[in-house]
């Protein structure tokens, strides 16, 4: 995909990615500041995250959680499974996935924001989860081998990607045949006007 989208959108992809990085880096640095979305443990509870999933995970990882759904509510992950978490952010879902798949499984969290990757790696280290790693990359070109994953998870990320089909094709590429997609995201029930789609602040807020 080029830096300027060749779709019907004339959005500056570089500016959009920068705005997203700034927004979620701010959440990681200062999760309690108050945003246009809920964060942290109250949000996790609202989305149906079980307390035992969060047990033993660093409070910093939980506090920076900013998902819009619950990939694990669709189906718990099984011991030994391989998981890719797209847009892993501060890492909470990757850490939960690592707990579920156990030491015989593997989790790769992918994020484009270095500050988030550092935070996620710190969280994994604090939680003692050595079978989760965080890689820098984009949803449209995932740093994971083809046919590697049993499950792809993501939470509140797909809506931020202008080229959703490219991202979904990458998800399909890294999945094994019959591999599962378990996604939390958003839907809009009213059509978004074309001019609104060009406004970068609306993508992040």
């Amino acid at each position, binding site marked *: 995909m080029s830096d300027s989208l060749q779709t019907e959108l004339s959005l500056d992809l570089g500016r959009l990615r920068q705005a997203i990085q700034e927004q979620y880096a701010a959440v990681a640095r200062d999760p309690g500041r*108050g*945003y*246009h*979305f*809920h964060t942290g443990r109250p*949000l996790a509870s*609202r*989305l*149906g995250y079980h307390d035992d999933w969060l047990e033993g995970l660093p409070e910093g990882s939980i506090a920076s959680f900013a998902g*819009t*759904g*619950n*990939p694990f*509510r*669709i*189906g718990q992950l099984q011991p030994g499974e391989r998981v890719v978490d797209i847009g892993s952010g501060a890492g909470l879902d990757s850490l939960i996935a690592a707990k579920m798949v156990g030491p015989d499984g593997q989790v790769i969290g992918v994020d484009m924001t270095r500050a988030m990757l550092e935070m996620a790696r710190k969280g994994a280290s604090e939680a003692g989860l050595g079978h989760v790693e965080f890689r820098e990359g984009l949803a449209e070109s995932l740093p994971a081998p083809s046919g590697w994953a049993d499950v792809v998870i993501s939470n509140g990320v797909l809506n931020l990607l202008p080229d959703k*089909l490219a991202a*979904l*094709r990458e*998800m*399909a590429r890294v*999945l*094994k*045949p*019959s*591999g*599962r*997609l*378990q*996604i*939390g*995201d*958003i*839907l*809009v*029930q*009213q059509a*978004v006007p074309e001019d*609104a789609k060009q406004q970068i602040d*609306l993508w992040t*807020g």
Partner: protein
Amino acid sequence: MAAGFVDFEITWQADVFSGAPQASSAAEFGTQGINFRARKAAHEQEWYTAMASLACEVPIKLTPLLYADVYSDAGDTGESEP
């Protein structure tokens, strides 16, 4: 579907933005949080079959009205006038 998935299903949806500390455009567009799942097709044939099932065919079925004796209550015996 176009990416190679089958069995797409939205399993949950709810308002996850109301009461957030800052106002957003979420309410304006009826934005809701969702969970959805799908499965990568096991092989190409499964995917082709799923894609084919999406083809829009409008079955042509004659309605009962066309077969009904619409003249039965008209007081007309069906016999021609002398």
